[in-house]
């Protein structure tokens, strides 16, 4: 089954992330965000960025045109992991850090499901770091939404693996001495085939990234900057505030030169990476054109390093990488199909043949 209502990858011949998922019957009324809203009361803190993401997802899902019963949301533990309860799809709120492994089982067992993982910086990068990198390496067909608020919210305010060094929290009264992860760099290092970063409050950008992520076949990794108004309020002010955001956001659009404010990105011929320069001092032809489809992730990685590891004054936003690579679940199912095609007889006959093989003897 295919659907034409999904986002266009812009690359002819690529398989869509949802191409095997049943769509709505032709002529049926379009779905609404309300249909995707469960009857459960949403219980995040007032002002939490999770609300914005939930609303965006609820309103975006109808665009996919998929049957609601064929969509599964899986989460781990943390504030963001309550997400599945608020969506009227199939869902599992699992255990801390393990959502990618559970989603791997679901996606591998069933080609006809659209599988989503909702996780946070603690869930995905601390306790579940191993599962995250291995899901990305395998490229299982699913979309991972990592809500990064750079703090532990549900346990009431300890520093997280993305908190800036020196952060004073309940567990680090003299300031954190941990070096933080950059989630995008980590995902690129794990050879993820789709890596993007977006912002909770930018509905338009968030929705466009979700759309591309759903259309991508393989593991789509989306980091969403999300404000925690209780324990880490203002962490993303620089990239959200109208006064500073033009300076703070490095916009990544495939095929476009990377320019923002009065700056531009060029190749650093000596260091091999990329370099921020004053736009006025560089010829148009020398400005780096963003290529999310580059087979080699080195440039994408170099761009990801422009993210501040301390207070977030600068961050590249957009799709860093979007390349085609065989998915684990497709390949595993293909092996099953090959083996099935070579077998004869019904399962009972084959079971009898299997257990009755080898050196046997008969007593009468």
């Amino acid at each position, binding site marked *: 089954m295919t659907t034409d209502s999904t986002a266009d990858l812009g690359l002819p011949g690529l398989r869509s992330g949802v191409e095997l998922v049943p769509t709505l019957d032709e002529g049926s009324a379009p779905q609404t965000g309300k249909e995707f809203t469960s009857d459960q009361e949403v219980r995040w803190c007032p002002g939490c960025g999770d609300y914005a993401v939930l609303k965006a997802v609820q309103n975006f899902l109808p665009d996919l045109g998929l049957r609601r019963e064929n969509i599964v949301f899986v989460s781990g533990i943390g504030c963001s992991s309550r997400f*599945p309860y608020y969506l009227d799809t*199939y869902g599992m709120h699992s*255990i801390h850090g*393990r959502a990618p492994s559970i989603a*791997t089982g679901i996606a*591998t067992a*069933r080609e006809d*499901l659209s599988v989503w993982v909702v996780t946070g910086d603690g869930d995905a990068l601390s306790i579940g770091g191993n599962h995250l990198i291995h899901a990305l390496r395998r490229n299982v067909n699913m979309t991972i939404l990592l809500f990064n608020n750079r703090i532990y919210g549900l346990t009431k305010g300890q520093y997280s693996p993305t908190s800036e060094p020196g952060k004073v929290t309940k567990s680090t009264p003299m300031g954190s001495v941990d070096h933080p992860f950059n989630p995008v760099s980590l995902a690129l290092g794990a050879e993820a085939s789709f890596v993007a970063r977006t912002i909770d409050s930018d509905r338009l950008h968030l929705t466009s990234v979700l759309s591309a992520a759903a259309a991508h076949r393989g593991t789509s990794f989306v980091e969403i900057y999300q404000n925690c108004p209780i324990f880490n309020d203002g962490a993303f002010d620089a990239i959200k505030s109208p006064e500073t955001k033009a300076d703070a956001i490095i916009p990544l659009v495939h095929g476009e030169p990377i320019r923002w404010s009065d700056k531009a990105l060029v190749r650093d011929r000596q260091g091999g990476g990329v370099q921020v320069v004053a736009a006025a001092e560089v010829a148009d032809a020398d400005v780096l054109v963003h290529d999310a489809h580059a087979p080699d992730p080195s440039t994408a990685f170099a761009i990801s390093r422009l993210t501040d590891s301390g207070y977030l004054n600068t961050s590249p936003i957009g799709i860093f990488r979007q390349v085609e690579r065989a998915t684990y679940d497709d390949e595993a199912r293909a092996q*099953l199909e090959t083996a099935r095609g070579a077998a004869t007889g019904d399962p009972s006959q084959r079971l009898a043949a299997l257990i009755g093989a080898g050196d046997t003897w*008969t007593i009468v």
Partner: protein
Amino acid sequence: MTQPSKQVKQLDRVIIRFAGDSGDGMQLTGDRFTQESAVFGNDLVTLPNFPAEIRAPQGTLPGVSSFQVHFADHDILTAGDAPDVLVAMNPAALRANLGDLPKGATIIVDTHDFTARNLTKAGYSANPLDGDDLAEFAVHPVDLTGMTVEAVKEFGLSRKDAARAKNMFALGLLSWMYGRPTESTTAFLTKRFAKVPDIRDANITAFKAGWNFGETTEAFVVRYEIKPAPMNAGTYRNITGNLALAYGLIAGGVQSGLPLFLGSYPITPASDILHELSKHKAFGVTTFQAEDEIAGVGAAIGASFAGSLGVTTTSGPGIALKSEAIGLAVMTELPLLVVDVQRGGPSTGLPTKTEQADLLQAMFGRNGEAPVPIIAPQSPGDCFDAALEAARIAITYRTPVMLLSDGYLANGSEPWRIPEVDQLPTIDPAFATHRNHGEGDDAEFWPYERDADTLARPWAIPGTPGLEHRIGGLEKGDGHGNISYDPANHDYMVRTRQAKVDRIADSLPPLAVDDPEGPDGRRARVLVLGWGSTYGPIGAGVRRVRKAGYHVAQAHLRHLNPFPHDLGEVLRRYDKVLVPEMNLGQLSMLLRAKFLVDVVGYNEVRGLPLKAAVLADVIGGLVAEAEGIEVDLTPKENA
């Protein structure tokens, strides 16, 4: 083919132990001898014993690998306490195994490896073949390596490659001594080395040369004959526990019509189940080699949620890692099979040795009140039935089920009567298809509305329209399944999950107790109760006591949680209950706690199966105490 000059002696049973360096191919040699004996029709039980190191330093004691096979003209239950014959391929193999041999045992040694250097490595200051150290044994020093190299020289192999066929020479010699049929080994070697004709021919030639050596040499004057054992009608094959367990899991998939999904991380001694299942994709079996133990069970839970029969296989350390996820399966009430092939613990413990010390981990090793049904197979072939039974319980009751095998069952083998597939039970997954709460347009789907008999909740899989629902690890409200922090609801749900597991006992047959009436019309006052792989040694010990004229009853538990309904009543029927276990008394603790019966434990944690003779003595002592009599277990005649 027997020459008239050779004497033929009848024996009712023999225990042979093949021992050599890890690289000497002793496991293969033992396995081939076993297959020959199985095809011949003897009853048999095997005990492989190998180091955890893949190639421990050559010629040293830690590098010794052995394979013991016990075969008989009658029904036997164990791999035997002490070998009648030891084949030792080097000094270390001799030294490591000598202590297990009874007086008069036969020792066949490969003299080629008894060099000064190898003797030193094994800790011998002088060659034991030269002095009187082995005077109480019948020693046959044979240059197995030298004769092998000579026999295969026409194939132009390097000396090293030629010498590697020495295990087949030894196998040929032993096959001659015990009149084993050789066709299956020749066929096996032809297939195994099909791509390397030189090696194939050298091995077959060495095998035949060993046979011919036995027939022509004057060093061996006696051949032995062990008649086939009478067995129930049927078609048999020899099978290890891990293979039978893998087949049982496949059968669980076929009999339920569900795709089987194994999420697993390699671990000794469970990995062979992963290897085997990975070959059977045509049955719709998916095997996912996960990044760790937790991901293995996580993926299995995900697959179960999606409508597969999720399975995870591991050993004790892996269970420790999976505990939280098993708790999730308890809370979400999804079918899940958790296979624990137990090994010596704690921690990394003894990876290649057997133990049954994970019972309490299986029972209680989770946070909160998290009841999990527990099933244990009693012999290698029984792993098939146990796996199928575990699948039945998991699917019918929507629950994780723990299947406790162990290293002895996993690698040991026995003849297995191949079941008729149409006689196997079928399992109905009974997926939910309709909204189950309320009527008409107002009807809703309630994921925790339970079946009145089993207390199982509906299993609604993604893709089923109208049944969209969310489950998870937070406490569920009764019926509707939404998150609930209500105290009364939590109390109710905890008790309901326990009641669901307890109700499994309603589907179990009464405990089978073997308590034959003696010729004097009396019955036993002592019961021996076991679980898992101790079935063989307990049964053999019980037979010895009965053979000596005393009364003892035996029962063996397949279901450890819940227990069969009548277990308490059975326990109270006897004056003394002996519970032998390869742990420090875990089943004993459960029985005492549940039934207030003062059971007597017999406990060993040596990494090896219990010995029948030891158990017979323990049982004898208890019979003497219970009946106030003297017990003498000295074999009368032919016992």
